[in-house]
């Protein structure tokens, strides 16, 4: 009788499994409903929802393996060398999983759309952000605020504010992006990329003052030819893993064991680099009925209004300057990870997304590779300290989303968006000042829009737009 009343003992508690598994348990349901709302047929909506659930299972499995191997090797290195790097860069696919798997993740699409439509109709922004997939960046920062403050309202408020902030940045750099990359009508409201604008402007201004540095540049094509191998995620994962394994498990008396261990680490980490985006693609595919539907929803409602279309910064990172400077920045990031005092972050997974971090500096420095590397170095240096400061919050948000922390006790972050000052600002303000912090953040964003409306031409030039053409 008891068995019937309490359910069979399956060795785990349904309540415990349910709690925390927002991504796996709720997101498919939400995706199903949203897909129906946006006019998808029930069968297709159900299949999309199921792939979202499947993707979550897959991504959590891969993260579990990847995090545990990276954590083990980082602990082995710490034991051997005393260099403690116990916050693992698990990459943007992990960050996106945390984002969509969190309690705020369920709300990000309706909130993002509502903010965008409201700011367009009031004429505050000119951007229509149809890159619904990347709304996960808003959700991630919201999830971190939720983890830091324990308040769902603050988490959701942050989602709305970050959505607005991304539109501000998109408006600001639109003309620069359009002129430099030759893509009319388009901009990139992508937090991981737009964050570089203020840093790039400041660093470039300083470079202009330094006589020798001012004249330096490097040929993008040559750099890409020489360092191209670094741009291959699996090769990078393997060789970096091999190197880390060698340092962590070196035993001069047993060269065979050392080699086997190092080789195993290399193959496991190459597997992580390959599989993580692969399983995430299933999530992306599952979301397509919703992202497509949402895009058509805004387009229908805003009709023929003149707007800048906001897209993924993925569309600009193929530029030779972004590729070349990002390749140089891979070894720079590894060196910074080892050398920076007080840093706890082991960079790894997101070494391949450095192009996203530097791409929008290109219009400001007219594609100068040396300057982009310097801007990237400053951004990353700052990023290591931001990620170290936020690591406990990031890890808590991951656990909340259903990702299990490995036995080695390491924490996690992701270069995108754990290295980003916008993330730090949002978390620091809300954690430190509560609702007052949220209000200050809102005021800052409103102020930024006001400045842009007042001094548009000058600010657009600062972001790298050429002088406006004389009436043509």
């Amino acid at each position, binding site marked *: 009788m008891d068995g019937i009343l309490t359910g069979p003992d399956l060795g785990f508690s349904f309540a415990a499994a349910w709690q925390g598994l927002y991504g796996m348990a709720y997101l498919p349901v939400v995706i199903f409903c949203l897909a129906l709302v946006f006019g998808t047929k029930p069968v297709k909506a159900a299949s999309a929802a199921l792939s979202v659930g499947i993707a979550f299972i897959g991504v959590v499995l891969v993260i579990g393996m990847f995090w545990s191997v990276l954590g083990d090797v980082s602990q082995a290195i710490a034991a051997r060398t005393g260099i403690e790097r116990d916050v693992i860069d698990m990459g943007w*696919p992990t960050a996106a999983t945390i984002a969509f798997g969190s309690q705020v993740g369920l709300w990000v699409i309706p909130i993002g759309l509502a903010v965008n439509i409201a700011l367009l109709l009031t004429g505050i922004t000119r951007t229509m952000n*149809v*890159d619904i*997939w*990347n709304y996960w960046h808003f959700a991630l920062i919201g999830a971190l605020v939720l983890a830091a403050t324990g308040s769902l309202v603050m988490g959701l408020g942050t989602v709305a504010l970050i959505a607005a902030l991304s539109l501000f940045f998109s408006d600001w750099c639109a003309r620069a992006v359009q002129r430099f*990359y030759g*893509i009319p*009508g*388009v901009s990139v409201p992508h937090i991981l990329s737009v964050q570089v604008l203020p840093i790039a402007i400041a660093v470039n201004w300083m470079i202009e003052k330094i006589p020798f540095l001012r004249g330096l540049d490097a040929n993008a094509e040559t750099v*890409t030819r020489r360092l*191209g191998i670094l*741009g*291959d*995620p699996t090769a990078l994962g393997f060789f970096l893993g091999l190197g880390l394994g060698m340092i962590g498990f070196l035993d001069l008396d047993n060269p065979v064991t050392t080699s086997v261990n190092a080789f195993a680490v290399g193959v496991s980490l190459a597997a992580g680099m390959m599989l993580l*985006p692969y399983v*995430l*693609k299933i999530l*992306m*595919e599952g979301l*397509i009925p919703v*992202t*497509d539907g949402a*895009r058509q929803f805004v*387009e229908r409602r805003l009709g023929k209004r003149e707007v800048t*279309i906001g*897209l*993924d*910064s*993925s*569309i*600009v*990172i*193929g*530029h*030779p300057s972004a*590729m070349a400077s990002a390749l140089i920045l891979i070894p720079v990031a590894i060196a910074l990870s080892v050398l920076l005092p007080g840093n706890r972050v082991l960079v790894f997974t997101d070494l*391949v*997304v450095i*192009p*996203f971090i530097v791409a929008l500096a290109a219009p400001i420095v007219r594609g100068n590779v040396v300057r982009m590397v310097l801007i990237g170095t400053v951004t990353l240096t700052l990023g290591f300290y931001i990620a170290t400061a936020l690591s406990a919050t990031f890890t808590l948000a991951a656990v909340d989303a259903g990702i299990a922390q490995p036995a080695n006790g390491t924490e996690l972050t992701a270069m995108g968006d754990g290295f980003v000052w916008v993330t730090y600002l949002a978390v620091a303000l809300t954690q430190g000042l509560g609702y007052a912090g949220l209000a200050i953040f809102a005021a800052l964003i409103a102020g930024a829009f006001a400045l842009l409306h007042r001094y548009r031409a000058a600010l657009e030039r600062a972001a790298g737009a050429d002088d406006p053409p004389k009436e043509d």
Partner: protein
Amino acid sequence: MTEPKKVLVACGTGVATSTVVAQAVQAAMKDRGIAIVTRQCKASEVPSQIGDVDLVISTTPLPKDLPRPAIVTLAFLTGIGKDRELEKITEILSR
């Protein structure tokens, strides 16, 4: 039954915008009765992946002097000029 045409779809990550393009092109080619298989990659991987493909479609700039036909387009993301791009793709794949 002819071999399906191979289309390589590239973007910055090989995950996000390339998935949107791959799905849109698959659907459109199915309507036109052209059998295709798509594969996705990062723009930087195109030179090493291009060997056996009939067409490359990318949302981001591609390296120069590729040995196969390549189209760089935002039409499948913005919806603007989509039909014209589909005509081009159909023409290349019908050869």
